[in-house]
């Protein structure tokens, strides 16, 4: 680590004002290289095949597809469901963020962990758990929601509410309450305080979380597919069908362009919204008071959210204890011994868990190596307009992988990476890198709102007092970064643990991950396969929840007293 020698280097004056120009360039180059190799190249290669025929440009498919009424129904359905999913996730997630991050009560930490679990469960498993509840014979069958759009939207909320809770909660917990208290003491009602003081402060985090969730909902595949693909399906399912079933790359390319436009619009809107609302905040040590009677409204919403999450998880848990021998731990014992009926030589669930954890560890390192410099770069208050524009482009570019179909990326690997680097691509060594691309947007979006809240005057003051650029970074941004980096690492780890799309294309059959094994077990008849799949999913959920809890606690207490020091 060459940090000390770097520290001694004398800063040169730069227009950007912090003397680290070349380093910022490096911070941008690393993640961009990542994206270029694991995203742009594969996707570009697929797209090229879709818009060329015999070496010449052929755009006739665009006219055909865009002329169909069904295309527009699909687009409408996609946007409608994603908007509903995002809005509902925010509506449920904001009160829950308040209760889980601004209030204390017994069981709060456990509840925080539970909220995150859905995010990493393989969607096929969630589909089974959800349908077990909603199917006509299930406990909630009377609602008549099975295979409806409402069920899909509920599942989207189930998955994504944690993004809102964590991202907004992360910022909320460290907001200095004094401004709000001042407003309250001047006679403002709690609702008015929230609307006029707190909400604007949370703006960037809300915009960031909302747009992320919208993108996740737009490109949701597994749950839309498993819960019955109501109506005409979505852009994502249509791309999957066109690519995977018909191998019609021409038509798939048209739908991919439509999806890309939707994604770009969402990114544009969210960055406009954050730009308007981002502001310097006073950040202090996490601050929470006991849950009281006046918090009944948000507490009620949180209870609802917890029910929505716990019901399917509970049904999953209960069913995982049922095997051919009745109730008991048999399914769990089998995880270590058997690789399931029909997979004689395969990986056991326990081995797969080990692979998953190791791969996720790698992916987390890669994601943080790329994500931390990137988040710092994105929150630099550059003076030059060109630099600020570059920042916005970079911010958008990092988000792009969220909006492109996994099947496009997956088959893209075949016509790009695998053609050029056959051995490497088949070895499975690329899995953590590909997962890092998937986790990067979430990590960046977790770090940016917190770092963006640092008052730039602190840096200027430190500079005026003679601190070099690295020292400013370490002493002003460093402590704030440390607050968020645990959460970011947890997200990276969790995303990697649960990643299915890219992993299924790249993983070596000898080194399979837990979600892949669970899905395989579910897909083949045989004694115990079902029970083992459910038990495996429960283990995956437990590991994830534990990691999230630990990561959140990996926060050096008292090491970061910016609020107090200034």
């Amino acid at each position: 680590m060459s940090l000390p020698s770097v520290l001694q280097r004398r800063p040169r004056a730069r227009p950007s004002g912090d003397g680290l120009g070349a380093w910022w360039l490096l911070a941008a180059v690393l993640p961009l290289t990542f994206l270029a190799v694991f995203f742009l190249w594969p996707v570009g290669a697929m797209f090229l095949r879709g818009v060329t025929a015999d070496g010449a440009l052929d755009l006739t498919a665009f006219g055909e597809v865009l002329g169909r009424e069904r295309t527009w129904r699909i687009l409408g359905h996609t946007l409608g469901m994603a908007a509903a999913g995002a809005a509902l996730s925010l509506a449920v997630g904001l009160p829950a963020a308040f209760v889980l991050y601004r209030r204390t009560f017994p069981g709060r930490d456990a509840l925080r962990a539970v909220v995150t679990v859905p995010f990493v469960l393989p969607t096929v498993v969630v589909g089974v758990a959800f349908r077990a509840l909603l199917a006509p014979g299930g406990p909630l069958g009377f609602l008549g929601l099975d295979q409806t759009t409402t069920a899909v939207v509920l599942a989207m909320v189930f998955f994504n509410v944690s993004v809102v809770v964590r991202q907004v909660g992360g910022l909320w917990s460290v907001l200095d309450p004094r401004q709000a208290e001042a407003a309250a003491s001047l006679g403002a009602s709690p609702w008015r305080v929230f609307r006029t003081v707190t909400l604007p402060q949370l703006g960037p985090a809300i915009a960031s979380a909302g747009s992320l969730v919208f993108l996740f909902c737009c490109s949701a595949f597994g749950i839309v597919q498993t819960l019955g693909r109501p109506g005409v399906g979505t852009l994502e399912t249509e791309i999957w069908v066109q690519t995977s079933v018909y191998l019609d790359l021409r038509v798939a390319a048209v739908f991919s362009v439509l999806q890309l436009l939707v994604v770009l619009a969402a990114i544009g809107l969210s960055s406009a919204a954050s730009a308007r609302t981002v502001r310097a905040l006073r950040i202090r040590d996490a601050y929470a008071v006991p849950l009281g009677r006046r918090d009944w409204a948000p507490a009620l919403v949180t209870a609802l959210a917890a029910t929505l999450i716990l019901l399917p998880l509970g049904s999953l848990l209960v069913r995982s204890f049922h095997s051919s021998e009745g109730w008991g731990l048999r399914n769990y014992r089998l995880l270590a011994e058997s690789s399931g009926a029909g997979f004689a030589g395969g990986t056991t669930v326990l081995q797969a868990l080990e692979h998953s954890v190791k791969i996720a560890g790698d992916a987390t390192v890669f994601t943080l190596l790329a994500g931390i410099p990137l988040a710092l770069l994105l929150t630099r208050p550059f003076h030059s307009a060109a630099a600020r524009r570059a920042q916005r482009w970079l911010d958008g570019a990092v988000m792009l992988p969220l909006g492109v179909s996994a099947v496009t990326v997956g088959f893209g690997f075949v016509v790009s990476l695998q053609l050029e680097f056959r051995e490497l691509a088949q070895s499975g060594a690329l899995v953590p890198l590909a997962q890092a691309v998937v986790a990067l947007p979430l990590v960046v979006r977790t770090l940016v709102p917190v770092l963006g809240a640092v008052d730039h005057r602190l840096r200027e003051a430190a500079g005026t007092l003679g601190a070099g650029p690295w020292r400013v970074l370490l002493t002003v941004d460093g402590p704030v970064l440390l607050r968020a980096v645990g959460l970011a690492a947890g997200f990276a780890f969790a995303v990697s643990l649960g990643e299915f799309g890219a992993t299924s294309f790249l993983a070596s059959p000898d080194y399979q991950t837990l979600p892949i094994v669970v899905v395989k077990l579910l897909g083949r008849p045989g004694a115990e396969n079902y029970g083992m799949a459910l038990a495996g999913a429960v283990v995956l959920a437990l590991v994830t929840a534990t990691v999230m809890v630990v990561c959140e606690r990996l926060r050096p207490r008292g090491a970061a007293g910016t609020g107090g020091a200034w």
Partner: protein
Amino acid sequence: MSHTTARSRTAAFGLSALAVLALSACSVADQTGGGSSEEQGSDAPKKTVTIMTHDSFEPPKELLEKFTEETGYELKTTAPGDAGTVVNQLLLAKDSPTVDGVYGVEDHSTHTLVDGGVLADVTPEGLPESAKDRVVEGKMIPIDQGQVCVNVDHEWFEDKGMDEPQGLDDLTKPEYAELLVVTDPVTSSPGLAFLAATVEAEGEDGWQDWWTKALDGGTKVASSWSDAYYTDFSGGDGEGDFPLVLSYSSSPAYAPTTGNVEGTCTPQTEFAGVVEGAQNPEGAQAFIEFMLSEEFQEAFPESMYMYPIDESVELPEEWAENAQMAEDPITPDPKAVAEHREQWLKDFTALREDR
């Protein structure tokens, strides 16, 4: 607390966190260094043969070791996804193939691969009698088989005192249509096999009527086999409301209170082939021959959940008792299926969406 200690603690925290992460960073080492060092322990130059398979091909390890012993080839498999994904990958990479052979292609895709120019001619030795007339165009060799059948929950029908349905025509009757759950032919391979069977049985002009009647009568379309079998089906591990489910002829082997509806079965065979332009076509052929050997064929039911293509090989007891394949299944012409598949699926989707 002084600033120095606060900072050094922060630094210490950062460093230790990095160290923990770095220690965990070993999947890459496992897969490149660690894994291969043990395989390459004996440094005799073995020739590798790479076979692309679907993601549920997990034969017993001892068998694969035996293959290397007998032939001297080191076997490497890649499994990019389900059978459909395998076919697409081969078509996409046909100008510069990345594998020597392929295993796990289903009946309805064999012609797609052959016509796509992906495969080389192959004449394996020791082709079992029962496999001979099922070779496709001298390029795709049948390895193992199964059937897609409607499974019935015997207990349910006994409790209700109702007769079980006997064939496709029964299933569209109002009393049975509402008891049946099938899988979406667009997203699931048993679903596609069953759709092809209805086209074969009801004819090009009649199959849409069959489906309209079934769907109007309350037949449910689940998106995947696991969804239909575990959530909607009342037998087996399922707790659902539907006593009739589209599944496999082998499923009742492990769900003794269920059985197959004879007249609904349709074959699903898995094929292997040698890839055109492969680096090691001899190795791929050797592996195909090895899979056709008696020992490997015997392993299919219990360790890979399929029936051997060599029908002279005996089935395990549970299979022989409860999970026999139908003797006279509905057998569509795979060439016709390959040709019309896309149109049928689009017609089916339209039929479903417009309801």
